[in-house]
Every structure is written in structure tokens, then in C-alpha cells.
């Protein structure tokens, strides 16, 4: 099974929300199949657009029935537990555009299924701190200021 995760699914938590939506959809599908022979069909369940996008992608290459949905859920659960994760800390709550940019860059350059966990910490002032595996990459403004503080007296002397 090959699914291209949308950029709106950034972290494992987002993926968990999607799994819950798809479970909801599976439940609705099952009830609807029982009622199929009956009088009228119930309305579609209220699931997120990202979940709908995942279901649409799945249905493009597979038949969307009860077993297929179960297989999709299993795949997503496996992805949630096995996918590589990076943690990105920013100076404030990231905008959706920034989130999207970082996730898309990560999925196209690092791993197609990578999960990006966003955090914020105002004391880093700007830039980002990336925790990846056992390493922490600090590209924050705070680190830059502290690393270059020996140059300030020289700069002030030259003013």
C-alpha cells in the first residue's frame, strides 16, 4: 500500500486524529451496509477533510469496503508507531503555512513518512531547534547571539 501523507498530517497526534476519523467512517460504513437492504441510507459521518483525502487516495487503488478500511487503519497505525519522527522547536506557535512548508520539505528531503512534532519556546528568540534521533541541532537566534558574544566588545570598540 502506498499513500502520500498530506502535509496537514504533521505529527503522530495528527495521524491519530485521522485514524479516529477513519474508524468513525468504518463504523458508519458497517452500519450503512447492514441498512443497505432497508429503507434509506444515513448521512455521511462528519470526518475531517484530511481523512477524506486519505480515503480518496486509498480508494483510487483499492476497493473501499470493510476489509479495505480495516487494512487502511492497520497501515496508518503501523505508520504511527514506526514512522521516523523529528521534533522542531520554534520561537512561537507556528503558522499553518510555516508548518506546511517544514513538513513538505521534510517529507520530500528526509523521509516520505516522517512525522514532525512542533513545539514552541520563546526564549530561543527565532530560528529553530531540531531534535532528530539522538542529536539536537540548534539553529536558534539565541545560540547565535551566545556563540558570537565575544565579538560584541570588538564591534563596540569600533563604533
Amino acid at each position, binding site marked *: 500500500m502506498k499513500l502520500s501523507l498530506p502535509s496537514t498530517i504533521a505529527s503522530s497526534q495528527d495521524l491519530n486524529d485521522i485514524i479516529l476519523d477513519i474508524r468513525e467512517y468504518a463504523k458508519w460504513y458497517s452500519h450503512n451496509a447492514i441498512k443497505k437492504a432497508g429503507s434509506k441510507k444515513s448521512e455521511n459521518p462528519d470526518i475531517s477533510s484530511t481523512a477524506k483525502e486519505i480515503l480518496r487516495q486509498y480508494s483510487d487503488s483499492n476497493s473501499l469496503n470493510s476489509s479495505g478500511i480495516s487494512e487502511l487503519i492497520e497501515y496508518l497505525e503501523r505508520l504511527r508507531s514506526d514512522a*521516523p519522527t*523529528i521534533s522542531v522547536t*520554534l*520561537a*512561537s506557535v*507556528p*503558522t499553518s*503555512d*510555516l508548518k506546511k*512548508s*517544514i513538513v513538505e*520539505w*521534510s517529507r520530500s*528531503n*528526509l*523521509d516520505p513518512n*516522517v512525522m514532525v512534532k512542533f513545539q514552541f519556546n*520563546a*526564549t530561543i*528568540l*527565532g*530560528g*529553530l531547534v*531540531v531534535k*532528530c*534521533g*539522538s*542529536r539536537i*541541532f540548534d*539553529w536558534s*537566534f*539565541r545560540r547565535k*547571539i*551566545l556563540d558570537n*558574544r*565575544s565579538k*560584541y*566588545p570588538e564591534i*563596540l570598540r569600533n563604533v
Partner: protein
Amino acid sequence: MNDITILNIILIINAFIMGVLSVYGFKHLVAHFKNDTNKHPQTHTITEKTKIPRELKEEMLAKAERDFEKMIDHSITELQSDLEKTSSEVSQHFSKISSNIINNETDQYRQMVENLRLKTSEIIDISRKEIIDHQTDLKVGLGDNIEAEKQLLIKQIDTKLADSVSSFLIEAMQHNVDLGSQTKYIIEALESHKDELKKEIS
């Protein structure tokens, strides 16, 4: 052979001469009195045989007595002269030896004083040189210490200044974070470390 030994030899010779002269004088005196006693029988004999007149006999005795006294006086004079001469020589010799000894002692003393002066002068020179060296060392050491202290103070001021500027920047920037304008920087930072991130992911 030194001067004292020569003096001793001269004194011994003088004593010997005086002894010989004394013995000679004593023997002469003894011989005279013996002759006087022995001459009586002869005289008596002669008197008896020749019948020397009493006046002649007395004259002869007076003459002999005068001769004896004269000879004794002469011996005394010679002895006195010899003693004076010896005494004079001894005095001269003594003064010569004394002056030699004094000269030697004076020379030795002068040499010792000169050696002491040279040694003292040498010690003073060494001390002066050591003092100058020590002063130089102190000046250099003091200069180094002042320079080190200066550099330490500059370093401390720089550290404080850097800390102040850093704190100011951190405090000032903390309230105006604009992530929108940082998107490009963030993506560039990720891009420039792509390989390291990939290595960690895999």
C-alpha cells in the same frame, strides 16, 4: 741560615773568647803567685848566694807588680773593647733583624690589606651587579604582572560587556518574534544540514 742562628753563633764565639781570656788571665795570676812563693827559696837561695840588695829586691817586686797591673789593665781594656764591639754588633744585628722582621710583617700586613681590599671590592662589585640584576628582574616582573592584570581586567570587562549585550538582545527580541519572516531562514537552515538530518533519520 737565618739571622737568629748567625746571632747565636756570634754570641757563642764571644762567650768562648771571653772564657779563653778569663782562663788565660786566671792562669797568669796563679802563675805569678806561684812564682812569688817559689821565688822565695830561689831568692833566698839567690839571696843566700848572690846577696841581692834589699832595695833592688823591692824595686823588682814593685816593677813586677806594676807590670802585672798594667797587663791586667790592658786585658780589661781589650775585653771592654771587645764587649763594646760585640754589643754594638749585636745591637746592629738586632736592629737589622728587627727592621727586617718589621718590614716583612709590614709587607705581609700591606699585602693582606690589599687582598682584603681586592676581595671587598670584588664582593661589592658582585653585590652591585646582583642588585642591578634584581632590580631589572623586578622591573620586568612588575611590567609583566601589570600587563597580565591589565589583560585580565580587559577580559573581564569584555565578558561583562558581552553578557550585557547578549542579555539585552535576548530580552529585547523575546517579545517581538515574527516567524513569518523567518520561514526562509528556517528552510535554508534545514537545507544546509539536510545530509546530517538524513543520516540521523536513517
